[in-house]
């Protein structure tokens, strides 16, 4: 591997700037003449806008412009779109309600943007925003999807009768119902997947600059996918054609999905820059983040699992209502369908599966992908029902899972997906060993002597990463292809630039991507730079989410490296007068195998650019581009085991052990992978124990709009994890990578809740398992 190659625990190159406060985020960007924006936002969850009076605001000190939605419409700025078409089971297309960047006629959630104020200072902009008078006629609001679908619920969009977006299904309902009817045992469970706020450390921000002389726009923004932002802003929002719009996502402080989407604010800042003639910067404060960043999860599910007399699973049926909020965010439609329902086979052979999914509008901020995106919801329902079944059947949860494991790959599930490779028993065994599963009864007895209730729970998860094969997702309704691109530029002195369409907002690409080059050419990673996040530098890319930078982004890099390597070898063969097939690259040397004839890597590079002595017909230069379109998703899987102690007097849960044994395929940098797992676990534990976005059901006000009420995981809420890996390489990409970014958040919640319900002897417990809820469940048991 070499000390900096594939598999090496290289320290992150980018961390020096991050931990010394030298990162360059959108809010650090400054351009001459730049002014500041504040948004006028709806204080109501649902109201008709009867009038907007900006006259007072326009007179306030420092104010340059106050702009509202009507003008924006006149200027032809388009509505926000959802980029994935889902059809209901009756064949009708999903009901996409109109989402104006600045609401003109109606507001639909607390925080909905109504107008933008541009002023000399941020404080002046805020003062003036308060002076904008909006005449609202307040309407009744609905915040839960279940309530929104009930007859008589407030109607949120005219074109979505009964607030339904789609009523979709997958699988063979007849077969499932028959299997359930003839089953030896059926376990049924009602599940709530609590709603979460993504809470990236850096709030969203945008700086829009219109250059009148060039008729050109530049947008600095907190994006996970700047090229997609440019594409959508030019193709759908009519901000500017792509060649006149540059989008730059510089350092971005975390996204977790919430920065995939193109929000009203960046569009509005660009438009406002043209209208006012000044560059316009907006930076969300934390309250705006809570109110307006797309939230995650929010499903209510009934799940049934059927077994034969031998405890083999015969069918699975899931019926879910999902809350998509007030508008359909960019990928909101696919999260509960093709990122969720098609994973219901989990790690098990399940002959018949059916999932029905109804989605609804509510008077809450839009819901979209959040770390795991659909797969945590599946895994939570599935792994709780399996564990519950084991208890009902009186068998060991581990053995029930083992008995039903898939054991041959590729494995075709009844719900579209074909799993690439795996060894689920290996991760189960590794986790059970690491957790000393067999020693649990002794530890439980010991805890009891201290007045504590101890419990153990597991979860065997699967997820689909590396989104996605373009043709396949196109046939399922995707509006884009999800390949990735890379360009390798070898400079004349042998240093290397990787241009990638992947975007790093915490993942460590500057290190891991450089490791690929180091591994290939033997150059130190210090002489490899990663260029990303700028549509003027990187030709095209689809960005980072869904654990795709490894399986898809790095695969594109590998393909480009293949081309560079081939050309470098041709040059070397020519210079060394050897056959191309005899050339090898080792430790920074390009050699004729088995001889001492060699050139330094930098000499080959220099020759490519001096072009004094190249093979006949060869073009000068050493720079290659590649696109990689995956043949399938990749399927990381693993086993998480959690052990808790519950204080019966207060209901407080302490995680005393957490073991994660994950199969991510091949690993480029184990330290970074561990970091991804740790972060994912923190968010999964957050969902299971702490976090909950709660709206007042009557007024639609977000009750958890600050850290005083929204419980973010802190260091002392989390245990010291025991993480390890088993490896079955993915056969579907050149590196054999499966992806690791979301596994922690996917696998951990059910393990934790299974452990708590085991400890307290009451399975009727919803996330987050707060002290009060656990205490109540103990006392109800």
């Amino acid at each position, binding site marked *: 591997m070499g000390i900096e190659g594939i598999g090496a625990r290289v320290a992150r190159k980018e961390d020096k700037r991050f931990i010394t406060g030298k990162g360059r985020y959108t809010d650090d960007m400054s351009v001459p003449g730049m002014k500041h924006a504040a948004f006028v936002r709806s204080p109501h969850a649902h109201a008709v806008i009867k009038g907007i009076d900006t006259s007072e605001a326009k007179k306030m000190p420092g104010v340059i412009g106050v702009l509202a939605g009507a003008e924006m419409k006149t200027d032809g700025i388009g509505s926000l779109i959802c980029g994935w078409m889902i059809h209901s089971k009756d064949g009708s297309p999903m009901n996409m309600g109109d989402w104006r960047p600045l609401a003109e006629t109606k507001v639909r959630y607390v925080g909905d943007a109504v107008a933008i104020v541009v002023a000399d200072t941020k404080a002046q902009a805020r003062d003036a925003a308060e002076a904008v008078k909006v005449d609202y006629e307040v309407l009744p609001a609905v915040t839960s999807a279940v309530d929104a679908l009930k007859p008589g619920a407030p109607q949120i969009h005219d074109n979505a009768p009964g607030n339904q977006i789609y009523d979709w299904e997958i699988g063979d309902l007849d077969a499932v119902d028959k299997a359930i009817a003839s089953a030896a045992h059926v376990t049924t469970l009602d599940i709530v997947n609590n709603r979460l706020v993504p809470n990236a450390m850096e709030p969203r921000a945008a700086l829009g600059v219109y250059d009148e002389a060039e008729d050109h726009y530049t947008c600095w923004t907190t994006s996970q996918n700047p090229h997609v932002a440019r594409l959508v802003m030019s193709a759908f929002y009519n901000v500017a054609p792509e060649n006149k719009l540059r989008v730059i996502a510089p350092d971005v402080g975390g996204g977790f999905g919430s920065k995939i989407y193109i929000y009203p604010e960046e569009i509005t800042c660009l438009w406002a820059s043209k209208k006012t003639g000044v560059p316009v910067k907006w930076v969300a404060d934390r309250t705006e983040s809570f109110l307006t960043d797309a939230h995650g999860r929010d499903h209510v599910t009934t799940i049934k699992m059927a077994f034969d007399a031998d405890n083999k699973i015969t069918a699975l049926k899931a019926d879910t209502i999902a809350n998509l909020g007030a508008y359909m965010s960019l990928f909101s439609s696919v999260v509960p369908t093709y990122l969720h329902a098609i994973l219901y086979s989990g790690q098990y052979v399940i002959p018949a599966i059916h999932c029905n999914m109804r989605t609804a509008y509510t008077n809450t901020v839009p819901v979209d992908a959040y770390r795991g995106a659909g797969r945590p919801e599946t895994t939570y329902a599935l792994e709780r029902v399996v564990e519950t079944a084991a208890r009902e059947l009186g068998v060991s949860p581990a053995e029930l899972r083992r008995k039903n494991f898939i054991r041959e790959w590729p494995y075709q599930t009844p719900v579209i997906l074909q799993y690439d490779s795996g060894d689920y028993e290996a991760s189960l065994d590794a986790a059970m060993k690491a957790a000393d599963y067999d020693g649990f009864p002794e530890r439980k007895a010991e805890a009891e002597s201290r007045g504590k209730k101890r419990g153990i729970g597991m979860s065997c998860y699967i997820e689909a990463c590396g989104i996605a094969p373009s043709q396949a997702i196109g046939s399922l309704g995707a509006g884009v292809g999800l390949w990735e691109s890379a360009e390798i530029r070898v400079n004349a002195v042998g240093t290397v630039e990787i241009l990638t369409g992947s975007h790093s907002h915490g993942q460590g690409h500057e290190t891991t991507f450089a490791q690929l080059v180091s591994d290939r050419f033997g150059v130190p990673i210090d002489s490899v730079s990663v260029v990303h996040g700028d549509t003027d530098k990187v030709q095209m890319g689809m960005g980072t989410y869904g654990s795709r930078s490894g399986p898809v982004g790095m695969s594109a890099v590998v393909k480009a490296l293949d081309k560079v390597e081939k050309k470098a070898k041709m040059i070397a063969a020519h210079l060394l007068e050897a056959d191309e097939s005899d050339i090898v690259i080792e430790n920074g040397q390009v050699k004729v195998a088995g001889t001492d004839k060699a050139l330094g890597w930098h000499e080959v590079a220099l020759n490519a650019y001096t072009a004094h002595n190249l093979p006949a017909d060869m073009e000068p230069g050493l720079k290659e581009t590649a696109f990689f379109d995956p043949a399938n998703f990749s399927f990381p899987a693993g086993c998480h085991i959690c052990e808790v102690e519950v204080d019966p007097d207060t209901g407080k849960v302490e995680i005393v052990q957490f073991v994660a044994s994950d199969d991510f395929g091949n690993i480029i940098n184990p330290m970074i992978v561990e970091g991804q797992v740790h972060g994912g676990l923190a968010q999964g534990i957050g969902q299971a124990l702490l976090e909950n976005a709660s709206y007042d059901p009557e007024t639609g006000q977000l009750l958890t709009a600050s850290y*005083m009420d929204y419980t973010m995981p802190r260091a002392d809420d989390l245990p010291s994890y025991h993480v390890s890996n088993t490896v079955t390489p993915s056969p579907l990409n050149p590196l054999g990578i499966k992806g690791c970014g979301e596994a922690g958040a996917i696998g951990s919640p059910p393990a934790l809740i299974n452990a708590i319900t085991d400890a307290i002897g009451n399975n009727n417990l919803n996330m987050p398992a707060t*002290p009060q809820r656990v205490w109540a469940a103990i006392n109800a048991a």
Partner: protein
Amino acid sequence: MYETHYHRAGSVDEATKLMADAEGGKYVAGGQTLIPTMKQRLAAPDSLIDLRHIADLKGVTVNGKDVRIGAGTPHAEVAGSTQLQAVCPGICYLAGHIGDPHVRHMGTIGGSIANNDPAADYPSAMLALDATIHTSKREISAGDFFIGMFETALEEDEIVTAVSFTAPDKCAYSKFPNPASRYAMAGVFVAKSGDGVRVGVTGAGMDGVFRWEEAEAALASDFSAAALDGLSVNAGDMLEDMHGSSEYRANLVKVMAKRAVAAIS
């Protein structure tokens, strides 16, 4: 934050004078409550009169069992005072469990009791220790000082200068933090001295901090956790919010009281 005028006072007198001259002025000490409220534009004082540079308001003095804590003393200094630890460890423990290190190095005891947040920790100790609150105008017993949620006996321009109390024989504080804010969902300060036992409860009561007199009586005759077994506070008098029902808070009050007693019996 709205625009405001900043004034730095060098003495208590100067501070009161600045307040008299200001229109809509507010004292600021650690700023750990006031500044976040201003940043959210929920408070908009025209003038801020900074008490942080008044030397008289600072420091902990311990004379035998007599304790005096200047109103401007930050929580971290109370938590770390070895003199105080020797005579009244309960209050050091309490101060050490307020917020996080940033908050403890900025926030002050005067600001905390003047604010009288129903979930703040200090007020429970003030009641249990039968403390005297010294102000720029008078001395007020803790029992008379705390009136209700965010309400005290302070007049608009009155400044807390110090708190004083006689250290009890034994004392302990037990806190169940709100999972999100880490303020008290139930915090119980138990102090035992020759005069008897006093139990101050914060975080739970609908009217803010209160004394649990039933528990005091029970503990006076039998100072053990078991003495509280048959008692309970009335759930109907407890706060209820998304983090805890009133029944849950009533339970926590009892559990925290028992733990505080158990720690010193």
